[in-house]
């Protein structure tokens, strides 16, 4: 998911661009019928272990925003142990005032008020285990994370007898959903409907135990791979998008239609429905064949459809070349009707986030769409535990997002190129990290961060910055190979942080524990600075020294480099002299400071740490260099702007006089 802070940008730009250009009625490359033609399903052989097989038959009431469904879940016990207790997620119950999710929202978001329209629920009407009978009375809500007895986002059921290793068990569940107005990701808004986290979903047996966390304000999801056969009955006017591919559509006599979808080797199933969606389609020809890109755009956003399509193709191309193939036959990109449902990833379906007036120079559309597509790799296929190791998907994904947008738009313009102002995507991530640098390590469980801000800035911003800085240590190309190796090795599994870190070490051939211990596991802050740099005449003590003469007068130049932070990192310093000479020094960075001294017939021009500006983890890039002769241009530029803004403020105020 993208950080919600970016939605603030939307609000701000709404105001700034109040007189902005109206949306042009440019249509996408191809706007086609709302009913997509069936596409072949995935492949002959399974790509994952397919622990689960869900068959869901659901009927959605678009008036009441309710859904009644039956779910048949076949679970393969490949845990190696007999299992008699199964936990299930009921995520929709998070949208209730006493849930852990809402308590955390209230704790972390100033001014957050509960509204009844947010209320949603998922109720299990019956639960039967084939061969063991009706176990509905056995359902017991649990709160493994915080013990909140009022939280009903996880329940468990105990079977009368265990399921033997390598056996399967089949659950038949009838459930009823009441959706609320979209608060986070799921729900309705007018005719718009986003059906996510909507069905009882079994936990994951992981590292020798069931992993089934409650739904928290900061957490996302974790589930086993498998197959999804979903029949969705909706009013005939609805345009529907979903995970998987659509196999069939049957019109019913009661004004509804039933759509059949199948998803293979995925670990969640999401759908959306809205009568007003405009459909645009395109194809990407990757190394595993054609992939259909299906855009579901809001009618008023068609001017943005081309941008969506373009960035999808560009991103897919680079992922295919750099990291690995996209093996599915389709990806659906949804332009949601509600910003709170935007910027989210589900297998084979992502939501973007835009407005009708978004200028090209703001890369917000590209950032969101690329980011969510990237999650098809980091979350979708490399299915890490988002509850416990959120940085593994959000961090790696934000890093690859930056690399791809840098490649497309240029390094300095991948975040913004508007009105003479530029900003890189990397810089946006780094600035996020700077605002919450030392509260939490990246390895903290998502729901244990000090607050939502720290979770976002560390999980996205710091992780990205850590990987950019890692480029300095092992090289950009090596890191790319490491990520490629990690993807190819761990796709369709649930790797851990150590799997990733060890892969980087193996590919680079380096022991990087010194770096990971500080950057990944620690909260140390990296800040080296040029504390002092100057040139002084060697004959400074002489009573009547000869006049200074360039190239003849001897100077002692001293450069003092200081480790201001507690993060230890090798420091490269370049010292330049006015005779054109340049000296490059390397320091292990372990002591608190190092002093370099030179006696030369030349004066200091500049001293600079990290001359290639790649150690983005360094908290203050301004103190990384020292110019012997001051350059006041930047200061005056800012002061001039500040003066003008004050002048305008004064002028507007004086209108009242």
């Amino acid at each position, binding site marked *: 998911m993208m950080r919600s802070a970016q939605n603030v940008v939307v609000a701000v730009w709404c105001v700034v661009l109040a007189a902005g250009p109206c949306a042009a009625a440019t249509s996408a490359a191809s706007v086609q019928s709302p009913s997509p033609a069936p596409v072949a399903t995935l492949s002959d052989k399974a790509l994952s272990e397919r622990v689960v097989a869900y068959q869901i038959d659901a009927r959605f009431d678009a008036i009441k925003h309710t859904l009644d469904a039956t779910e048949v879940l076949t679970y393969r016990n490949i845990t190696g142990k007999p299992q008699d207790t199964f936990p299930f997620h009921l995520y929709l119950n998070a949208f209730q005032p006493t849930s852990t999710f809402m308590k955390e929202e209230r704790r972390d978001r100033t001014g957050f008020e509960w509204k009844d329209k947010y209320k949603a629920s998922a109720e299990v009407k019956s639960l039967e285990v084939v061969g063991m009978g009706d176990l509905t009375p056995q359902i017991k809500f649990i709160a493994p994370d915080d013990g909140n007895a009022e939280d009903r986002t996880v329940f468990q059921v105990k079977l009368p007898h265990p399921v033997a290793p390598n056996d399967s068990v089949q659950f038949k569940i009838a459930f009823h959903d009441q959706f609320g107005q979209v608060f986070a990701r799921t729900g309705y808004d007018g005719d*718009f409907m986003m059906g996510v986290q909507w069905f009882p979903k079994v936990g994951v047996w992981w590292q020798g135990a069931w992993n089934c966390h409650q739904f928290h304000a900061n957490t996302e999801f974790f589930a086993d791979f498998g197959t999804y056969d979903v029949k969705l009955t909706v009013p005939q006017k609805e345009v529907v998008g979903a995970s998987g591919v659509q196999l069939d559509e049957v019109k019913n006599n009661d004004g509804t239609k039933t759509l059949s979808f199948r998803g293979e080797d995925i670990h969640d199933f999401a759908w959306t429905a809205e009568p007003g969606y405009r459909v645009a389609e395109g194809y990407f020809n990757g190394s595993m064949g054609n992939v259909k890109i299906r855009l579901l755009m809001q009618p008023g956003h068609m001017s943005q459809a081309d941008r969506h399509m373009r960035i999808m193709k560009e991103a897919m191309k680079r992922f295919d070349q750099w990291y690995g193939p996209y093996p599915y036959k389709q990806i659906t990109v949804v332009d949601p009707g509600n910003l709170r449902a935007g910027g989210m990833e589900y297998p084979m379906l992502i939501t973007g986030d835009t407005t009708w007036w978004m200028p090209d120079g703001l890369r917000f559309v590209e950032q969101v769409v690329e980011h969510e597509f990237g999650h098809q790799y980091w979350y979708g296929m490399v299915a890490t535990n988002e509850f416990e190791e959120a940085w593994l998907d959000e961090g790696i994904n934000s890093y690859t997002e930056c690399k791809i947008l840098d490649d497309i738009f240029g390094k300095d313009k991948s975040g913004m190129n508007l009105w003479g102002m530029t900003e890189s995507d990397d*810089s946006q991530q780094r600035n996020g990290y700077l605002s919450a640098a030392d509260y939490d390590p990246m390895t903290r469980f998502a729901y244990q961060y000090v607050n939502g801000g720290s979770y976002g800035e560390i999980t996205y911003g710091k992780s990205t910055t850590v990987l950019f800085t890692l480029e300095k240590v092992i090289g950009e190309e090596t890191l790319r190979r490491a990520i490629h190796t990690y993807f190819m090795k761990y796709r369709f599994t649930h790797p851990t942080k150590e799997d990733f870190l060890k892969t980087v070490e193996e590919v680079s051939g380096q022991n990087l524990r010194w770096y990971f211990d500080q950057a990944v596991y620690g909260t140390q802050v990296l800040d080296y600075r040029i504390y002092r740099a100057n040139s002084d005449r060697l004959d400074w003590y002489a009573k009547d020294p000869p006049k200074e003469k360039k190239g003849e007068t001897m100077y002692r130049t001293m450069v003092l480099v200081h480790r201001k932070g507690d993060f230890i990192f090798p420091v490269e310093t370049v010292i330049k002299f006015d005779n054109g000479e340049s000296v490059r020094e390397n320091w292990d960075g372990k002591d608190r400071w190092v002093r370099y001294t030179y006696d030369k017939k030349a004066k200091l021009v500049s001293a600079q740490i990290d001359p290639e500006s790649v150690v983005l983890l360094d908290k203050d890039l301004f103190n990384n260099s020292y110019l012997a002769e001051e350059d*006041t241009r930047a200061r005056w530029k800012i002061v001039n702007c500040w003066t003008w803004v004050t002048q305008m403020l*004064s002028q507007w105020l004086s209108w009242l006089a």
Partner: protein
Amino acid sequence: MSDQRGLLNEGFRRVWHYQRALWFIFFINLVLSHFGAAPTIHKLDWAADHSMQSRRLTDMFDYGTFSALSSNPEVNLFEVAGVSIAFSIVFFVIVLFLTGGILEAYRSGRRLTTREFFEACGSYFWRWVRLLILMGIVMIPVLMLVSLVWKQGTTPMGSALTEKTGFWILVAGMGAMALLLMCIRLWFDMAQVRAVVEEETGMWRNAGGAFKITFGNFRPLFWMYLRISILGWLVFALGLWIWTKMPAKHFGWTFLVLELVVLAGFGTRLWQRASEMVWYQRRFLAPLAVAPVTPAPITPVPDPLLTIAPPPPLSQT
């Protein structure tokens, strides 16, 4: 409406003739705003002047670099925003003070001596304060409406279904609010004009009289006010457009363009004031009551505001 012919021309002529008022206000604004910005100089000098990272702000304008610099705890640029706001308030008080002198100059149609000018400033100042309080009272419900329109517009903008509706509600609503605020401003502009021309001292009574005049002659008055406002907005937009097109490293020139925008803003506002005065005089005074705008010989006095004509007796209040 034949007496309105050439109204804007005459208003412009008076602004031009008494342009030292414009330059004076502009100069005060520039100086005070520079004082408002002064703390940033000291905050930035040690952080930016010797750093090569600053080049990302001069050779280009990298917003990420600026953002990192401004939020650096050792710089914390925006913590001095209060100083700028304080100087803006000082400027507001100064303009309130100068308004009496400026209107007196526009009334007389000639250059005032420094003494006349500041006597007029002082003699009207507290009347303007009272009018300001009255205007504040009138504006309270309008500002509440602005808040309501903002909420009505921005709430639907959160959803794509109603996004455009919300946007147009916001644009239309804020446009209507702006017009309403301009009407109120026009009303109190006329109250100030009336107070100067009629030597009115009772501001409640004066506001009432101005209300009748303003809304009894609303079309010509508002049309006059609006035309000049539109010109001001166009100059503002043009200035910003040029600013965005200029190379980032030529920040001296960009500053000059921005200063012209400020100058044009003050110029158009004074033009409105002068035109309102001309309108009032043409409407309510005998045609010959307006003194001819003929420059008198200049007495060489060093004070920049001091001018030529012998000080006529100024009505005391």
